[in-house]
């Protein structure tokens, strides 16, 4: 091993340590940003080293230059311009890009090895072939799956589960075809057209796997696809004999998998149920207890403001409705006013409120709500019985008491915020429509509950002026 190679490996080691620290520092809001910058620094180091010291780079620098500038412009513009509400789909599309890159690298390596000119080191013959196939298929699934997830959250593709008779059979057949073709390519024939067919099937499979999943479950799907891209990257690390890719890819593959599991646990559902349950069909089965016209009591903003202004304790429950209306600024203002009047104000954050875990925290932090006022579900659920007013802002399914009592409800068993135990419940909502899961919420017909209809931002602004006058 030459001195140059030793330094390369040391550069990979340093970069890998920064990646691990980036994830580790995310354990606390105080260190999280430093960690991310550290990871970016490690990434810059390994990219710079690769650019400067790779044999053959001198003749091909323009490829990296042109493509690198184009990719950077797209990445920065996308990341800077996207509104905070659209963060989940942005992560999805960046993840899809990574999966696409891994699949493309694998494809290029396959073509090279078919013609005997691979960029990577030749491993044992069978290992690189398997790794190439894995990188191509997992990267391909991640690419199209992420694009569908993006489309569902952005509204290009219907958010409801898209299923048709036999859709599961089709998915199973696609997966079977991948396995069979993979075995053929690995053991029997080294054929380029067959490999292209293999990649094409992977791309179709990504679509077929994500289409039947409802929009509410997209965060779990994005997390899972994130893990897939990590595994695809690790596989290409094997193909190229590159430890940086191997370590970083595996790190993300494992952390994405455990994160996916944590998210499923928060909803009290299995990953199998999320992927194949076609959850939230909407308008389908309505359980007997909740069927029929819901009778809800309405309240106006002035009365609701007075209710809160003279309360001792108010818990605010934010949901996706707050994000859509961009109401976080007025919500902070409302909190400040209430605190100034001596009201104890806290926020109850359900693990899956919004479209991603932590989505609400990000938005409220953006509005300068101190994060020690944000309480996680387990921390705050016991406080509802001693709360005067629970203010639900555009959250629905995570407050649905049917999850506790109604065994026929699709969300039965999901841990919920015990909003219905507060003395008064004020629900801000645009209409009586069902939530993302498409199931009615008996909370709204509870005698303690009053509905305040309208756009969340305008309504909260009305509450703010109401509290000022109270």
């Amino acid at each position, binding site marked *: 091993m030459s001195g140059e190679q030793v330094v390369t490996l040391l550069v990979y080691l340093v970069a890998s340590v920064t*990646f691990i620290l980036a994830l580790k520092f995310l354990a606390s809001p105080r260190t999280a940003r430093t960690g991310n910058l550290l990871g*970016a620094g490690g990434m810059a180091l390994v990219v710079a080293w690769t650019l400067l010291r790779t044999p053959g780079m001198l003749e091909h620098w323009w490829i990296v230059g042109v493509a690198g500038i184009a990719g950077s412009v797209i*990445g*920065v513009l996308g990341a800077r311009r996207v509104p905070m509400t659209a963060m989940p789909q942005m992560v999805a599309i*960046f993840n899809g890009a990574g999966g696409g890159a891994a699949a493309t*690298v694998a494809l290029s390596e396959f073509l090279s090895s078919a013609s005997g000119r691979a960029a990577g080191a030749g*491993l044992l013959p069978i290992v690189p072939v398997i790794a190439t196939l894995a990188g191509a298929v997992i990267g391909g699934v991640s690419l199209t799956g992420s694009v569908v997830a993006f489309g569902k959250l952005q509204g290009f593709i219907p958010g409801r589960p898209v299923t048709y008779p036999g859709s599961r059979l089709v998915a199973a057949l696609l997966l079977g075809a991948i396995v069979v073709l993979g075995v053929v390519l690995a053991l029997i024939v080294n054929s380029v057209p067959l490999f292209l067919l293999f990649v094409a099937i992977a791309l179709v499979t990504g679509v077929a796997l994500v289409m039947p999943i409802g929009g509410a479950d997209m965060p779990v799907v994005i997390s899972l696809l994130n893990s897939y891209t990590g595994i695809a990257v690790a596989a290409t690390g094997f193909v190229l004999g590159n430890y940086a*890719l191997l370590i970083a890819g595996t790190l*993300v593959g494992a952390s994405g998998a455990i994160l996916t599991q944590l998210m499923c646990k928060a909803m009290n559902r299995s990953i199998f149920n999320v992927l194949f349950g076609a959850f939230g069909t909407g308008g389908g089965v309505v359980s007997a207890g909740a069927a029929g016209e819901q009778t809800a009591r309405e309240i106006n903003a002035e009365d609701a403001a007075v209710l809160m202004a003279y309360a001792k304790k108010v818990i605010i429950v934010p949901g996706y409705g707050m994000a859509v209306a961009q109401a976080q600024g007025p919500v902070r203002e409302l909190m400040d006013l209430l605190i100034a009047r001596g009201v104890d104000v806290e926020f109850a954050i359900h693990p899956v409120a919004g479209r991603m875990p*932590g989505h609400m925290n990000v938005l409220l932090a953006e509005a300068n709500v101190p994060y020690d006022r944000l309480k996680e579900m387990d921390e705050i659920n016991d406080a509802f019985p001693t709360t005067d007013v629970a203010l639900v802002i555009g959250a629905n399914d995570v407050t649905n008491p049917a999850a506790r009592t109604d065994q026929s409800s699709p969300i039965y068993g999901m841990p919920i915020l015990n909003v219905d135990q507060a003395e008064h419940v004020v629900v801000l909502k645009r209409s009586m429509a069902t939530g993302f899961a498409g199931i009615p919420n008996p909370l709204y017909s509870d005698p303690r509950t009053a509905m305040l209809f309208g756009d969340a931002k305008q309504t909260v602004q009305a509450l703010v002026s109401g509290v000022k006058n109270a």
Partner: protein
Amino acid sequence: MTDALDPRALIDALVILVLAAFVGYEVVSKVPTMLHTPLMSGANAVHGVIVVGAMLVAASADDPLRVVLALVAVVLGTINVVGGFVVTDRMLEMFRRRPGDKG
């Protein structure tokens, strides 16, 4: 880049793979729910290291088809890595404390 991985190097790679998987599992188990979105985004940025793989492919691209593939791979990889880190930083920027908050 490493030389041809002989069986010994292959075992090394497997050891690294297994240990990295455990590190990933352990590190993420300790992250609080409210930071799960930035975590997903941060992990997403880390697998943007695929851009290095794309660059290695570019360095050995010696026919038009592979030049095109290298261009595509580097563009996608750069979007992943640059967008990933920038968007994560933007999220985390919002977790900074207001001046005057204690703790």
